[in-house]
């Protein structure tokens, strides 16, 4: 986290300094009623207006787009979630109060989706980050053609979800898929990857792991290269081997980066959608015949766009939003704890 902070520090301080000192001067001039350096009053007024308004004009594009594409939809979704709205008749909305939310809390499908989102999230995030840190450590050694390795790491991330998932679907197809074919070699009976409970979840997480491990590894690698070399040198002088260096130097130094990737991966896992949808093939939004890999994102899509119950889908969207807020709060607490302990 040290490098992003430093990067941020520069523009932040200059921005604060500029409007902070200048409007003060302008106000002083205006208060006395005499423009500085003998220029016309309209000029000073224009100048004052410029000082106050320009910063807002400069930051406006972001906030306008944010408002139009994030805030308004967010609030509109909240409004929808309190109504009975059907996709086929958006103009007739009847007030439902908290019915949609009550309906969700008593729906087995919702709890099932929440549980799946959690388990798939755990079995994809944990191995993924551990593998990433290991890979980053290996890439951090002096290697021949290190750029090639790094680029290769990023290729899965650059692949489209659709293409990757389609290939994985074929690999996992229960009749004639390559995975079952390999299992057959070792004498294991074919597994119906799409319909078995843990098998399908494993398959979905393997796609996630494949796509994101390299991406996270590169983030770790960047952070590792910022670790001063003399730390390793002194560790080596003290007689620490590679593994001990990794444990006692690399990992503690990476702690802020690890936290960052954990947060980003958790958010990604909560919103998991594309992989299970495409893995399911036709009617993939059901997440299997027993909803065994239906995530919250899929459940929302199924309710809103397949069944056409937009009110309920909006309620799911807001529930997801609240869950993310809770995760963010927990993360904040953990970060504070860690900082104190350091």
């Amino acid at each position: 986290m040290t490098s992003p902070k430093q990067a941020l520090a520069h523009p932040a301080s200059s921005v604060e300094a500029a409007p902070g000192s200048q409007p003060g001067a302008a106000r002083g001039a205006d208060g006395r009623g005499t423009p500085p350096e003998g220029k016309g009053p309209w000029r000073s007024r224009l100048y004052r207006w410029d000082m106050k308004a320009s910063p807002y004009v400069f930051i406006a594009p972001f906030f306008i787009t944010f408002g139009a594409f994030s805030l308004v939809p967010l609030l509109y979704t909240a409004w929808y979630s309190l109504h009975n709205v059907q996709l086929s008749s958006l103009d007739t909305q009847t007030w439902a109060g908290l019915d949609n939310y009550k309906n969700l809390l008593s729906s087995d499908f919702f709890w099932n989706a929440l549980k799946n989102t959690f388990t798939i999230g755990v079995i994809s995030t944990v191995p993924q980050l551990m593998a990433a840190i290991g890979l980053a450590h290996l890439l951090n050694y002096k290697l021949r053609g290190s750029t090639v390795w790094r680029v290769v790491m990023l290729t899965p991330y650059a692949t489209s979800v659709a293409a990757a998932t389609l290939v994985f679907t074929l690999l996992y197809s229960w009749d004639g898929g390559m995975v079952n074919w390999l299992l057959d070699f070792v004498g294991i009976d074919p597994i119906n990857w799409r319909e078995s409970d843990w098998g399908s979840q494993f398959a979905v997480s393997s796609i996630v792991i494949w796509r994101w491990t390299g991406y996270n590894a590169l983030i770790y690698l960047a952070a590792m290269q910022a670790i001063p070399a003399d730390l390793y040198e002194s560790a080596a002088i003290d007689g620490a081997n590679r593994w001990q260096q990794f444990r006692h130097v690399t990992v503690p130094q990476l702690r802020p980066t690890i936290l960052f990737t954990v947060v980003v991966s958790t958010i990604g896992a909560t919103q998991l959608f594309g992989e299970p949808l495409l893995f399911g093939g036709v009617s993939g939004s059901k997440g299997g015949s027993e909803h065994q890999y239906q995530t919250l994102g899929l459940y929302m899509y199924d309710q809103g766009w397949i069944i056409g119950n937009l009110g309920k889908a909006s309620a799911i969207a807001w529930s997801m939003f609240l869950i993310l807020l809770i995760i963010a709060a927990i993360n904040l607490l953990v970060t504070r704890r860690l900082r104190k302990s350091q």
Partner: protein
Amino acid sequence: MRTTTRRSHRLLALAAVAALTTGVLAGCAGDSDDGDSSDSGNNAGGGKTTLTIGTFGVFGYKQAGLYDEYMKAHPDITIKENVTTRTDVYWPKVLTRLQAGSGTDDIQAIEVGNITEAVQTQGAKFVDLGKDVDKSQWLDWKNAQATTPDGKLIGLGTDIGPMAICYRKDLFEKAGLETDRTKLAAQWKGDWNKYVDLGKQYMKKAPSGTKFVDSASSVYNAVLNGESERYYDKSGEVVWDKSKGVKNAWDVAMSVATSNMSAKLKQFDKPWDQGYANASFATVACPAWMIGYIQEKSGEAGKGKWDVAAAPTAGNWGGSFIGVPTASKHQKEAVELAKWLTAPEQQAKVFAKQASFPSTPSAYSSLKPATATTEFFSNAPITQIFSDSAKTIPAQVFGVKDQPINTALTDIGILQVEQKGKSPEQGWDAATNEIKDVLGQ
């Protein structure tokens, strides 16, 4: 130092203001330009009118060269097709655009599973085509499906899906079964259970790695689409759990799912496509539009090995409509194009290319499948078989949530029995829960 900062600030502000104003002005200018050109295009007829047509899957219009033909005959018209592969992605998009009153194409295709929803909830958003066409050209039940309660015809029928059974002659021979299409049809005529019995016989001597049928769900759909009663009754009430048609189709599907004769594939999935290429199943319920699909997915290896026989009962599986949204800016031209595309001659051309079966009976006498298709299917008289089926299709009542109810039964209920080894009762209960969720009960 100070003055330079100030000057640069002023310059920046000026630049920003300048940029904003020119942007606004350019916007205005752009708008009026657009207005002018399209106006002159419409009034003087000198410019070109671009008609867009929104479809899903493969409609075959482009493949049969119909757009080019129309544009040649009408030099002032340009046609652009916007294709979405999957219906479940296509339809929600159309619904939202219809209600927003903008963004729709000049012509929108509607799948038969969505036509009731369109008729009951979107009637006002489509142009009434009834006055412009000779309705008697189409099959009565096809028109009825696209007619609103107050008599508005919101869609013109494109294809229909009369059903037959496509089967692998070579596999049948190896399993010691009858291979002649008329004798086969006679063996299972009138009762899908006889078809299942033949499957049991097939499995006794089945060539290794093959099953009798692709999936229990496809058998379910095939049976259900021949029943007059489905999920809704005529008054629009949901009766799926009391419906005789559903019961019958479910029972047949259950005997398939529990007797190891199914390859357990999911239709339109990638592994299903592979199933055609690897010849892993011997029969498939075969609506006319499936002919083109089989030919494409089986490839050269399947040539001459497939054959077509009449199905146990006649039924209609699939088929679409095209309608003109009132939001279309070129309604008159769009209606003309829709009329032309769905006229018997054009439907016959699509059949020749894609084997999509016409919904206009007067085209039946002139139907000619492509020679490649005929050869592929062992010279089976597919025109004759599908025409005969089309004539005896029962009229079916559809409902607003027909599609999600069907998905719940096939992709939850039947799939649990077929792939997870659940009992038929458990499968039925799971489907019931799902349908309750769909209907918001």
